[in-house]
């Protein structure tokens, strides 16, 4: 089946720097994408989403960019803080209609913040 993947399993950044986490997807029919953050010992938490009719969406300190031409999704975190240390997952939803609209998740990137 189609897959959603991440370029790097681990990303290490200095506190205060900007972080960019990348995700490649293969299904051009996907119409909705989400980024999740999972801290140690907790379930994934919704960060930000974007629909396929957009190429950029901003939240608080986070920005998601979508490039449909190359099927690439990225999450940018501004001024990275220790509390940003977590595993980040991208997820995609295919416009299949009906059912429970299951998401397909990437394998995750572990963001490590260096003091």
């Amino acid at each position, binding site marked *: 089946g189609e897959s959603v993947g991440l370029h790097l399993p681990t990303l290490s950044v200095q506190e205060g720097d900007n972080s960019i986490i990348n995700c490649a997807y293969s299904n051009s029919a996907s119409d909705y994408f*989400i980024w*999740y953050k999972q801290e140690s010992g907790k*379930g994934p938490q919704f960060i930000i989403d974007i629909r396929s009719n957009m190429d950029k969406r901003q939240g608080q300190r986070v920005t998601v960019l979508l490039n449909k031409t190359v099927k690439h999704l990225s999450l940018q975190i501004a001024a990275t803080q220790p509390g940003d240390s977590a595993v980040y997952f991208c997820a995609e939803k295919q416009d299949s209609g009906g059912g*429970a609209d299951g998401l397909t998740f990437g394998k995750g990137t572990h963001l490590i913040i260096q003091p």
Partner: protein
Amino acid sequence: DVKVTQSSRYLVKRTGEKVFLECVQDMDHENMFWYRQDPGLGLRLIYFSYDVKMKEKGDIPEGYSVSREKKERFSLILESASTNQTSMYLCASKGGGANYGYTFGSGTRLTVV
């Protein structure tokens, strides 16, 4: 604050035991999901349900079953636990409408010995 609650954070069971993992959501969501999470494999969908008494197989249903007798509760059942079912199990729910974001529980780490 909306919640998805999984009844146990940690469980240790013996091979061959029947195991029940419970999940309750208080958001009146129609859709509920069970995933397992393993290092290097990410989240894999086991079963999902889009309504009471309805269930659908996900990507890895073998060795599992589910029950959805009430809208708020979705149970995952391991009929005869095996060591390869040692994993982190995550329950999620999702309402209808344009917001497709899932709300996840905190997870149950199951060890089968």
